[in-house]
């Protein structure tokens, strides 16, 4: 739009210049004869000098200058308006384009972020699932091992319980157990097995 305005101004100036040239040539182009032509020429020159004297020329010059300035001013104003309009449109266009591009880029960025986030979440979820499975498997294995070890210890303890308790009693109160305190227990056991004992002693005696 800017170049069009400039071209319009230049075109106007060229048209004005061509108009002056055409007027000058049309005035100087009518020659009835060589002599007459010269006379006419001189007369024309005189008329021209008479008509287009310095004042008139100055007026024309001033008028042309004013007209030219007016045209220039108008065109400059148009150009300014066009420029403003163009700038505004360009700004709007740039805003739209930038906004659109930014929105697209932000959309892509958000999508990328979302994809990366989802990927990370999936990865974390898989890792968490794998860890959970490993933990469950380890827990089961450990529980099984603990159970087996506990059962083994319990079985071993139960198998040797009498020896263990006997050893404990021996260590704990072995030196404090008086045989006289056990007499009642021993006599009770003897009495309980009296029949077998007596029979064996008498059969052997």
């Amino acid at each position, binding site marked *: 739009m800017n170049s069009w305005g400039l071209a319009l101004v230049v075109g106007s100036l060229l048209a004005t210049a061509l108009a002056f040239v055409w007027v000058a040539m049309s005035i100087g182009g009518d020659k009835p004869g060589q002599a007459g032509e010269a006379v006419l020429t001189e007369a024309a020159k005189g008329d021209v000098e008479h008509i287009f004297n310095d004042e008139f020329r100055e007026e024309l010059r001033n008028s042309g200058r004013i007209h030219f300035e007016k045209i220039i001013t108008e065109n400059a104003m148009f150009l300014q308006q066009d420029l403003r309009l163009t700038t505004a449109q360009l700004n709007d266009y740039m805003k739209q384009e930038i906004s659109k591009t930014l929105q697209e880029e932000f959309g892509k960025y958000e999508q990328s972020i979302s994809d990366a986030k989802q990927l990370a979440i999936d990865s974390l979820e898989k890792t968490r699932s794998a860890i959970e499975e490993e933990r469950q498997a380890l827990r089961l294995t450990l529980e099984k091992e603990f159970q087996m070890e506990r059962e083994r210890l319990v079985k071993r303890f*139960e198998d040797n*319980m*009498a*020896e263990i*308790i*006997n*050893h404990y*009693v*021996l260590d704990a109160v*072995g030196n404090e*157990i008086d*045989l*006289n305190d*056990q*007499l009642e*227990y*021993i*006599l009770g*056991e*003897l009495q309980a*097995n*009296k029949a*077998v*004992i*007596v029979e*064996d*002693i*008498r*059969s*052997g*005696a």
Partner: protein
Amino acid sequence: MAPDTNNSTQVPIKQSEDKTLTLPLQIISQGDISRLTREVESLEEFFAQASIQAANAKTLPQASSMLTLINEENGLNILQKEDRLKIKQFLELIHTKAPIVHASFATEPKPDFLMKLTAWFRAEAHPYVLLETGLQPNIAAGCIFRTTNKYFDFSFREHFKASKAKLTASMRSPQ
């Protein structure tokens, strides 16, 4: 406490073979019988020598407490040859034919404790039962008896084994 059989070479003795003499409870083991037998033999020898060397009669040896007990419980007099002979025969009979019960304890039993056990055996089983004692510290408490053909474990260890189910139950549900 299921009795186990063992091999013993004890010669049977009939309870009715010698009812005239009683065996004091203080005489417990075969060692006591052997010591008494040697004492009676030395006494016999002393009296034999005394009869030969009447002029140089020595002082009568002091009788042991066990020999004194036999004399007192049976109304005998060691100064009499017949009584000495009777005691000697009695001791030989006991030594060869009395039933022997082997008892094992965690600690060395005191004489009065052994006397009480001996009293039970002589009252319930046979009047001439002899008790041989031994030590088994690993039984903790109680005792183990071994008669001619059987084995009786009255130790706490065996008691614990017999009460294993009760022990297990009490440990599984402690109060």
